[in-house]
């Protein structure tokens, strides 16, 4: 009895013990009494949005949903659930009705939008998804030329047939000079930023293509989530991620960029770690009229800005670390250890020229479309707000400021 009294005395004198006691008691007992979350929520990993044909307001939502199945193998089972509604939120509610669960967006990694639907007004169409607090703004956004539902079905197949996951593919886009990873966050950051421009990844889904990952797909009566249907016939679909990107301004598509265009723009952005540069007809002590390809290991860009006579000047120092990986020339023989071979001054100069030309072409694309993807506006404005405002006022069209900024590009090539 004395011990119990002593224990109670300690308990009442130490609020910390009481706090711990209360937390364990309340949270513990409540958790024990609750249903498993998996029975309440449908775990959605990808969302697709399509416009319904012959309807102005209706949208079709496709949800790539994880289906818990007791099995001994490692494979996760997914199904594509489709629903239509007057708005995205209504369609999601109907999808929840079909599933018999609430639709949980916490695990969504990609949002697939049909290009036609996207080009109308992407920011308005994605409004619901941005307002939803459970959908992370880091969710990748992808545009596709096919129906988003078909794309998700192909993704489902890809997942079940291989270890390749679509979100891994998209996430890796950031690594390469030819592509770009776009998320809801980057899209809106671009849209609300001074340039109002953003980039959105584009992945094609085609029936016959020489490039990309091929997956089997169902035709005819085969429905999503019903892939085992005997009446369905098998065909092939190719998911083609070639770096294509949609350039948007004010939330609307203004140009479809290919991987070469992206390479040019990414050199200006300096946000990649892999890629290659090729120089043609190169001659020095070792090579004669050779075609040399260099792998890029790292690239940095340092932009310094100033105003001269009310004209903004951007000095861009581009540092590129390269290594010769391929040489094509008639009668070429490797006679010495190429790993120890330093790049000749001529090769460095040729590469610098090539980088300069790539960046110039990238600038031309941005100028032509009045899309300040590299956000020099912020740099200039933060450097000297008054000078920037004066400069903008001096222009006939303030939106066309990129065409009136002088860029001085200084590439520096380093052999790695």
């Amino acid at each position, binding site marked *: 009895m004395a011990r119990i009294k002593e224990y109670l005395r300690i308990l009442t004198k*130490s*609020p910390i013990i009481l706090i711990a006691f*209360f937390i364990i008691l309340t949270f513990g007992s409540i958790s024990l009494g609750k249903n498993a979350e998996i029975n309440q929520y449908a775990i959605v990993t990808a969302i697709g949005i399509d416009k319904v044909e012959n309807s102005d307001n209706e949208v079709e939502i496709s949800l790539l949903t994880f289906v818990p199945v007791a099995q001994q193998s490692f494979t996760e089972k997914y199904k594509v659930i489709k629903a239509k509604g007057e708005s995205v939120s209504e369609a999601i509610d109907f999808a929840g009705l079909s599933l018999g669960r609430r639709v949980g967006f916490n695990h969504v990694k990609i949002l697939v939008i049909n290009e036609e639907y996207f080009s109308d007004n992407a920011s308005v169409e994605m409004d619901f998804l941005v307002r939803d607090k459970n959908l992370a703004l*880091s969710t990748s956004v992808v545009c596709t030329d096919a129906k988003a539902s078909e794309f998700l079905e192909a993704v489902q197949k890809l997942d079940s047939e291989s270890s390749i996951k679509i979100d891994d593919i998209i996430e890796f886009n950031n690594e390469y000079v030819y592509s770009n990873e776009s998320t809801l966050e980057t899209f809106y950051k671009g849209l609300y930023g001074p340039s109002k421009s953003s980039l959105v990844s584009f992945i094609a889904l085609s029936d016959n293509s020489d490039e990309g990952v091929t997956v089997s797909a169902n035709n005819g009566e085969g429905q999503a989530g019903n892939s085992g249907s005997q009446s369905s016939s098998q065909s092939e679909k190719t998911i083609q991620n070639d770096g294509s990107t949609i350039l948007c301004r004010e939330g609307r598509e203004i140009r479809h960029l290919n991987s070469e265009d992206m390479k040019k723009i990414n050199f200006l952005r300096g946000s990649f770690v892999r890629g290659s540069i090729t120089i043609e007809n190169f001659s020095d002590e070792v090579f004669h009229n050779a075609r040399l390809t260099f792998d890029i290991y790292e690239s940095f860009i340092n932009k310094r800005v100033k105003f001269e006579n009310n004209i903004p000047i951007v000095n861009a120092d581009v540092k590129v670390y390269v290594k010769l990986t391929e040489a094509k020339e008639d009668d070429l023989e490797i006679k010495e250890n190429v790993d120890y071979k330093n790049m000749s001054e001529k090769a460095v100069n040729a590469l610098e020229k090539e980088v300069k030309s790539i960046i110039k072409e990238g600038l031309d694309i941005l100028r032509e479309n009045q899309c300040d993807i590299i956000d020099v506006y912020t740099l200039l404005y*933060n450097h000297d707000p008054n000078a920037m405002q004066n400069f903008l006022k001096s222009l006939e069209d303030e939106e066309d400021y990129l065409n009136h900024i002088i860029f001085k590009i200084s590439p520096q090539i380093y052999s790695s």
Partner: protein
Amino acid sequence: MKDRTINIWQAGILLFIIIFANKILVLPSLLYSGANIEGMFCYLISFLLEIGLITLFIFLKRKYPTYSFSKLVKEKLGVITLKIVYVLIAFFFFCKLILIYNVTYIFFKDLIYKSSGNFLFLICLLPIVNYLAVCDLRSFGRTVQLFFPIIFIILLFCVITSFIGIEGMPLFFQSNVSDVFLTTIKHTTAFGDVIFLFLFMDKIEYKKGDGKKLFFLATFAMTFVCMIMLAFYFSYTYTSFMHPYAIFEILGKVKDYGGLGRIDVVAVILVMILTYLQMGIYLKCFTLSFHVVFPKLSDAYALTTFNGVFLILVFLLIRNLERTITYGENFLPYLSLISFVLIPLCVIVFLVMRRKKNGKD
């Protein structure tokens, strides 16, 4: 229960904890909406005012080391003024309790306990907060002392990792001075909690040079708050207004880009610990003020009054974040007059009266 004294470190830790109240969740986003990146100046202005309040407290404590604030008001300004001042202080802390409860509840509901109602949250929170309010101040001081290293380590972790998520530069100088000041006034409600020091004035052991310790811990907390706010603004730049829960979002950003897994849970733990302790301090201040207004009534009356009115208001007010923010932006700023005008005015009056008395002597 008669409160025993706390040492200056314990008072400093209480101050450290209260400085985070209402500042690291929704405030950064609201300030960005009002004043863009210049919202950081709103923090600086309000923190300067809080530093001023701490300075006044130290000054008063030096002049009247054994006096309580209520005794000073009673002696210098009379009983009626005492009652008015303490009714206002009690009201101030009561309203702040509702605000912090609402914001935290909506935060947890939005992000974790979607299906859980207000009732569950109240069960988890109210008994402990009530206990913290009635327990001896020294026990409370020791509890916060025990939690301080945990809070400090989590904060340090949040700040360091959040800087990994920083990318890009926001656009500066978009807002003018009036935007900054109007936004500051609109959100002063998140500041001014440091007046709790005046209420515990006679319960804080104070020796020569202890003021530096208070300043050290206060500026330390303010630095942490500013760093969280900066990391948030520089991580999200133009979309800062779209992210309502700053401390959670900055770790979320690192999770996304650093491949570190769900480390945003760390922020949830921090918010949970801080909310318990901050609400405990608020309620302790409320009961203390209640006791001054009604000296013959025990703490039980104070807590019954609080719980009754609190439950009614909480059920009326809690709907969503928008409603809470409307309450915080439109009604509560007037209450900041209590912390930033009324208390300093009282202190200045005491000091002037003391000087006159010394002059006459």
